[in-house]
């Protein structure tokens, strides 16, 4: 047998290595700064290597389990960015806690899991990656040991997560039973032949199981509680990281598996996803209207965003996938930025109620402005990143270039549009708190550098992508092509 080419999964390996290294380092040095810095270095190094791979246009398959192509490269990179943001946000957040080594180790392990999912081309790869992330993040949620809220959140996350894992696994097993293979390509071939009841059941279970990760209604209910209970950086990670991973897994299973195979199954599933998407975005947005806690608000908003992204699975054209990937990328920066601001304000114990944000514009102009940008971007106000990605994503429901206007999904775009109008309402409410209302105190707020770094990173990304989206869209096109190849 030939020796597998480990360079293909070097980025993941770097991160994993760091994950194993950091606790040891910390145990030896007891230097929390060092732990953070090493993890940061690892992520950056991995990122650099990834960048090199992108430039080189490396492609290949690792034991037929992990494939390296434009899609996996893009997503791996995205997850690394998430890790970077979360790490930056964490550096200060955790300084008052103990066990930094474990914290960073878990974070890195979770990241590695996501990265593996990004390039998995086999059910086993997907499963392992997803679980690696899940289990690490259970622990991350529970990290603040003495906080009962954190404990409660962790338990909820654990129970629902475990249940979903079971569903997923069972779904996989049936899928395996139907198609006699665990490789996605093989599945694609096999499904083409004959749809069976077992196949449908397995798909339902996969939707339920992975729907938990991407917070599809009705599998979303853990999310607000967990986001609220967990520390803000962890919430960030869950919202922009593991959720995206769920989408990647779904894309792989359903798009590779099914779109490739033009079976009747496909259109059936598409209807299912369309309905779920509509319900998800509507519920998410409407409930968000009534939220008073910033984290919960963002949680519901990202449930709604999940709804938008699920349109991709319903429409399932290459153009839609482009839009979906693009929106995933922009969403990382918008939602990530917003969450990190929340984290920063929690860190300086400003509280996370909406009312705590009164007069923020006077007390912390830059923070307020960034929040404004992120929220409006989420609402899809031009010329910000969120607008452009929504523009592509929503328009995919109307058709794809060259295709006839309209089609069966035209109604989805109306639902989506109405929803994003509703969403503007609660985003604008936050903005009003920050810019219109007066604060009790006028005294200025000072936020640590690491937070500012993360926030500014997101801010720049959101504005830059909004003004010049061309390169990102091109990346997405390549990725989509690779995914549906």
């Amino acid at each position, binding site marked *: 047998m030939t020796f597998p080419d480990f360079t293909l999964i070097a980025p993941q390996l770097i991160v994993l290595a760091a994950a194993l290294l950091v606790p040891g380092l910390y145990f030896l040095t007891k230097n929390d700064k060092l732990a953070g810095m090493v993890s940061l270095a690892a992520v950056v190094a991995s990122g650099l290597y990834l960048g090199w791979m992108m430039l080189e246009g490396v492609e290949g398959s690792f034991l037929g389990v992990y494939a390296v192509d434009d899609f996996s490269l893009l997503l791996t990179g995205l997850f690394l960015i998430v890790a970077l943001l979360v790490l930056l946000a964490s550096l200060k957040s955790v300084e008052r806690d103990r066990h930094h080594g474990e914290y960073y180790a878990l974070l890195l392990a979770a990241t590695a899991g996501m990265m593996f999912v990004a390039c998995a081309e086999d059910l086993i790869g997907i499963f392992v990656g997803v679980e690696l992330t899940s289990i690490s993040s259970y622990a991350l949620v529970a990290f603040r040991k003495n906080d009962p809220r954190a404990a409660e959140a962790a338990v909820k996350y654990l129970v629902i997560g475990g249940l979903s894992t079971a569903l997923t696994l069972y779904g996989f097993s049936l899928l395996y039973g139907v198609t006699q293979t665990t490789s996605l390509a093989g599945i694609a071939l096999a499904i083409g032949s004959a749809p069976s009841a077992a196949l449908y059941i397995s798909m339902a279970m996969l939707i339920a199981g992975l729907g938990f990760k991407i917070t599809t209604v009705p599998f979303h209910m853990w999310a607000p509680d967990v986001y609220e209970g967990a520390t803000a950086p962890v919430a960030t990670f869950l919202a922009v990281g593991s959720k995206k991973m769920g989408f990647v897994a779904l894309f792989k299973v359903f798009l590779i598996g099914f779109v490739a195979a033009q079976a009747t199954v496909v259109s059936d599933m598409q209807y299912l996803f369309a309905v779920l998407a509509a319900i998800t975005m509507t519920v998410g947005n409407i409930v968000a209207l009534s939220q008073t806690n910033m984290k919960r608000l963002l949680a519901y908003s990202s449930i709604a965003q999940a709804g938008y992204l699920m349109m991709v699975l319903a429409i399932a054209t290459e*153009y839609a996938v482009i839009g979906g990937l693009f929106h995933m990328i922009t969403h990382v920066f918008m939602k990530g930025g917003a969450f990190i601001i929340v984290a920063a304000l929690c860190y300086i114990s400003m509280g996370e109620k909406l009312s705590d944000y009164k007069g923020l514009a006077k007390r912390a102009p830059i923070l307020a402005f960034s929040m404004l940008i992120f929220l409006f971007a989420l609402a899809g106000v031009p010329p910000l990143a969120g607008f452009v990605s929504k523009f592509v994503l929503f*328009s995919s429901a*109307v058709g794809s*270039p060259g295709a006839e206007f309209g089609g069966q999904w035209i109604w989805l775009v*109306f639902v989506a549009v109405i929803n994003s109008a509703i969403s503007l309402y609660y985003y*604008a409410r936050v903005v009003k708190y920050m810019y*219109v209302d007066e604060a009790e105190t006028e005294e200025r707020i000072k936020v640590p550098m690491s937070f500012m770094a993360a926030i500014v990173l997101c801010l720049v990304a959101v504005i830059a992508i909004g003004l010049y989206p061309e390169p990102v869209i*091109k990346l997405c096109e390549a990725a989509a092509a690779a995914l549906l190849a």
Partner: protein
Amino acid sequence: MTDYLLSLVLFTPLVGAVIALFMAGDKLKYARWVALVFSAIPLAISLLLVATFDKGAPFTHSIGWIETSVLKIQYLLYIDGLSLVMVLLTTLLVFLVVLFSWEEKERPNFFFSLILGMQTGLLGVFMAADYFLFFIFWEVALVPMYFLINIWGGPRRHYAAIKFFIYTHVSSLVMLIGIFALAFQAASIEGWTQLSFAFADISGVAFAQGFQVLVFGLLFFGFAVKMPVVPFHTWLPDAHVEAPTAGSVLLAGVMLKMGSYGIIRICLDVLPEGAVAWQIPMIIIALVAIVYGALACIAQRDLKKMVAFSSISHMGMVLLGLATLSDIGIAAGAFQMFAHGLITAVLFMVCGIVGHNVGTRQIPLLGGLAEKMPKYAAFVMFGFMASLGLPGLVGFVAEFNILVAFYDWGLAEGIVWVIIIALASLLLTAGYYLWAMQRSIFGPLTDKVDVSKVHDVSVYEGVSLAVLCGLIVLFGIWPAFAWDFIFPVASDLAAVLGVI
């Protein structure tokens, strides 16, 4: 060279907005100077453009922007006669508004920066020649207004602001769907692998009649809310009543025009068959809006709310002109947009002054103000007279031509009597304005509010009002100056619409 002038005119205000924003702390007092300078530059440039405009060759400025395998979005600016007039109106009004708000005390840096930012959005809408760009500016113009109302507004400002924001946002999104439809259909008909959003590309496509009717509906809704026409108007009175004067002036003076501009620029141009199919509904809506708005005005007690409803009535006039689909009608509609922009600015300024100086705008509480505030009374009377279409002032030319076009249409359709409805509205208009004047500035001096120490129009207010009044007279006695810019555009459209 001139093509870069377009971008200059477009983005100078934005630069000014950023600079003004940083005029915080002890530099607060310089904010207004920044605003003045950065609103004067666009005004100067647009005047230059007017001077150098050649009706045969519109100004254009195009740069490739987003070019991927699925999308083709360009940075296209385009100024023909119609756009030019609207651009001039915008730059002028913003400049005057800055002057008018010279004494603004609360967070002036933010205030002026918002106004300048909005100017970029407004100008962009009138200059964009790419749907993507068009929509961006369309939305950008929205945001500053939300803040203007929400921060500097009246007691119910939060409600009004969010209502304005959401309502108009919904409409723009529906419009966006229409734009999607256009782009995709064009791509499929022409067999493009890219979605192109350039006006030029799309207006060349021959869409199927049914499709045109459908999409015209989507786009028309988007624009109708903005204009606004009954029954999609209710955001307007609230927004106006609560908005600060500067906001109201720009809202009514320019922002409403975005809607009618869109109808001319997009609906009529790209979807001629749809326009023909929608003609009767549009005319009905327009007539309803005209009369409905006028009647609502009569019932108002708040001077500013009355003016707001009068805007609805007058924008109905615009729609009436456009709906005739004749060259005179379209040109007159566009001219009415310009005229209403100037006039309504005066009206909202005087409303703002009375609210600010006397402390109330409730007509029943006012009375005999001409005694205490003669200059103010003169401006009020001038504005009202201009708005009720007094010949010799700009409003008359517009209404006269709109009604001429409408009469011709009615005659051709054999239902000439409908013009009676429009004419009746002229009476109603005169009615509510005169009645309001009788109760607010004439008659015995009010004793319901303390007017012992009210002061008359201040210098800055006076100057900006005087300039506007001068222009209203100028364009009233020399309408050809604006008309000849607009008419070629209108006649080109009518030529296409005529053959259907």
